[in-house]
């Protein structure tokens, strides 16, 4: 039975299996050349066909079955990345199987069909070498594939596969199938598997007329006592010993080498979860939180959004934007809006300096009972610009029955129909919020809002902010100053240059034909 190598497995193994001999179809030299192995299979096909004419008909029918099975397998789903390689070689002749496309994971149905077609008649002796864990990567890491064949840990395996009548390599087989390999083979062969200790194999009596399923347990490296390479080498020795014993007994066998589990699993995201198509880099990342909305009679009246609402009482910054507050105490009418955010908490701050009367700083732990920032906005009509403007008059920060007021009317304003947005609204650096009176306990309180957007009036039915009047203008004050001075100087330069270029030689009284001017030497 020839099983097509799964496509999923080949994508990684393809290049890594390429040996130093390069592309040489039909040479069949080297176990460690995947495409070589594949082309070697192909080159074996005509050989088989020529030599085994008697079984041509059955082989054709088997090939047809295999082809149909593969066709069905193409429509199958093989998205799991948990895969185990399977190597099969036989001293009998097995039906050939075209290699699967690179990257395909062979599903269980295909393997079952193949095994059935291979073992359907006659008695077969099957040796199943089940290693605790096996992956393609074990072959690439320890198989001596980088030109160092002699250091490889699979020398017996390679030799066996090369000298076998037919062989099959499946770099990726669905894991569940591999772990059920004994059951599958039992079903196909009709015999129960026998766990054999390799040392006692020579003593075992095997009847060639019956089907036998011998199953060998090979360990995988645990890293405790021996290196992985040594463990695999030992396993290879065991395989070699078993095969030589079988050869000595003159029994035709089919050997399968696979693993119970993969030794390395590469996590892969399922394609169905990925968004197809490109997305803008500037697009908002998924999971942007919704703005805080205060509704009055089910229509939004105040909206607030901030990436960070950092509040500082003593030394640590607390980000309030990660929690959801309650909006009790908020109100919203046509001239005033007040948004109150209630954050109940009971956290202990690391240190909370307290100034005593003797100006001796006593550090102790403070418990913050609640944090209640409230945003007070008002709207007025201004006659010079003939429109309504709103301003964030104050941000009151209440905590532990202490209150500090931050005045924002100077810098936080916008026309009433629009929202106000600013990347950085803080109370200490280019402060838009100016801290008012503080007491001893509240002298260190600070605010730092990042990517802050607020609107208190003029919200339509929707839950979108209106146009955001940004705190950053088109040009900064410094740029305007530079532009004014530069343009003035350029204008002066231009004027001066034009004056210089208009200086001409006086030629009013030039008379080329008249007498030249005479300068008297004496007065």
């Amino acid at each position, binding site marked *: 039975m020839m099983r097509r190598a799964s496509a999923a497995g080949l994508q990684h193994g393809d290049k890594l299996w390429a040996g130093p001999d390069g592309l040489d179809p039909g040479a069949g030299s080297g176990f460690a050349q995947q495409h070589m192995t594949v082309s070697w299979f192909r080159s074996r096909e005509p050989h088989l066909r020529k030599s085994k004419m008697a079984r041509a008909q059955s082989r054709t029918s088997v090939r047809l079955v295999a082809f149909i099975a593969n066709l069905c397998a193409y429509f199958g789903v093989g998205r799991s990345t948990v895969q185990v390689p399977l190597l099969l070689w036989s001293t009998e002749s097995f039906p050939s199987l075209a290699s699967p496309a690179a990257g395909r994971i062979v599903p269980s149905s295909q393997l079952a069909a193949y095994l059935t077609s291979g073992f359907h008649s006659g008695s077969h002796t099957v040796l199943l070498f089940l290693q605790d864990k096996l992956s393609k990567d074990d072959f690439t890491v320890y198989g001596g594939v980088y030109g160092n064949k002699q250091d490889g840990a699979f020398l017996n395996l390679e030799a066996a596969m090369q000298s076998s009548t037919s062989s099959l390599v499946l770099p990726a087989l669905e894991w569940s199938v591999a772990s059920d390999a004994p059951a599958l083979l039992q079903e196909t062969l009709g015999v129960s598997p026998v766990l054999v200790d390799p040392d006692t194999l020579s003593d075992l009596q095997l009847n060639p007329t019956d089907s036998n399923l011998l199953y060998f347990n090979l360990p995988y490296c645990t890293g405790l006592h021996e290196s992985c390479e040594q463990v695999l080498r030992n396993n290879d020795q065991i395989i070699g010993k078993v095969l030589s014993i079988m050869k000595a007994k003159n029994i035709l066998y089919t050997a399968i080498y696979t693993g119970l589990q993969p030794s390395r699993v590469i996590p892969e995201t399922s394609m169905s979860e990925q968004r197809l198509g490109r997305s803008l880099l500037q697009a908002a990342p998924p999971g942007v939180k919704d703005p805080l909305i205060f509704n009055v009679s089910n229509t939004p009246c105040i909206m607030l959004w901030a990436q960070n609402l950092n509040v500082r009482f003593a030394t640590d910054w607390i980000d309030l934007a990660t929690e959801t507050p309650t909006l009790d105490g908020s109100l919203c009418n046509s001239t005033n809006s007040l948004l109150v955010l209630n954050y109940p908490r009971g956290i202990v701050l690391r240190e909370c300096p307290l100034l005593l009367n003797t100006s001796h700083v006593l550090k102790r732990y403070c418990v913050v009972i609640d944090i209640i920032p409230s945003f007070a906005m008002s709207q007025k009509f201004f006659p010079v*610009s003939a*429109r309504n403007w709103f301003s964030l008059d104050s941000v009151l920060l209440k905590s532990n029955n202490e209150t500090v007021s931050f005045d924002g009317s*100077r810098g936080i304003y916008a*026309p009433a129909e629009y929202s106000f947005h600013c990347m950085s609204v803080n109370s200490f650096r280019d402060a838009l919020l100016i801290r008012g009176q503080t007491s001893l306990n509240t002298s260190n309180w600070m605010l730092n809002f990042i990517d802050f957007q607020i609107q208190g009036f003029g919200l339509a039915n929707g839950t979108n902010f209106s146009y955001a*009047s940004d705190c950053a*203008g*088109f040009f900064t*004050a410094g740029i*305007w*100053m530079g532009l*004014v*001075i530069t343009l*003035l100087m350029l204008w*002066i330069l*231009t004027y001066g240059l*034009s004056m210089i*270029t*208009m200086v001409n030689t006086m030629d009013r009284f030039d008379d080329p034909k008249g007498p030249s001017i005479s*300068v008297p030497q004496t*007065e």
Partner: protein
Amino acid sequence: MLLEWMMNGHAILYTGVTVAFWTTILIVGICYTIFDLGFRFDVAWFLTETSPFMWANLGIGLAISLSVVGAAWGIYITGSSIIGGGVKAPRIKTKNLVSIIFCEAVAIYGIIMAIVISNMAENFSGTTPETIGARNYQAGYSMFGAGLTVGFSNLFCGICVGIVGSGAALADAQNASLFVKILIVEIFGSAIGLFGVIVAILQVNNTDNLDLVNSCSKNIT
């Protein structure tokens, strides 16, 4: 004639630059109006956010430079006339140096005012318009105004004295008795430069607003 003037490379260049500049301003203004962003055009923001130092130093710079331009222009005009007339009548050159001295005085007015104004500029603390304070803004604008006043006055005074001096030189070359009469015209022309200096002194002389001081030290509310 117009075509000849149009073919002048200078005219094309200046016309092009002017048209481009004003077109940009016009289109930006139209866009702002259409999108109801006219509120972003804020002259008060510009006047309060730009540093008073910019205005003060502009005034100082313009005081000296415009005065010097006036003096230079005047000397250029007078000097070329004296030299030209002195070819045929060398006796004029000593007497007509007075015209040059009148032009030079204009430059001296300019530099004196520049030094006087710059001595009034001091450091101040404060980063926001409220903390900078109205007095500092007024000091900056006063210095700018004074500089402009003395600069433009001296500019035109210098040109005036220059042209009159040129006429005096050429008249003197023809008839020696004309010089003294024309000198009186020149004196009147020179007085207007002095007017500019006096007004500039008055502009910066308001002792309350003279200095750019640290507003904290003056107990300003």
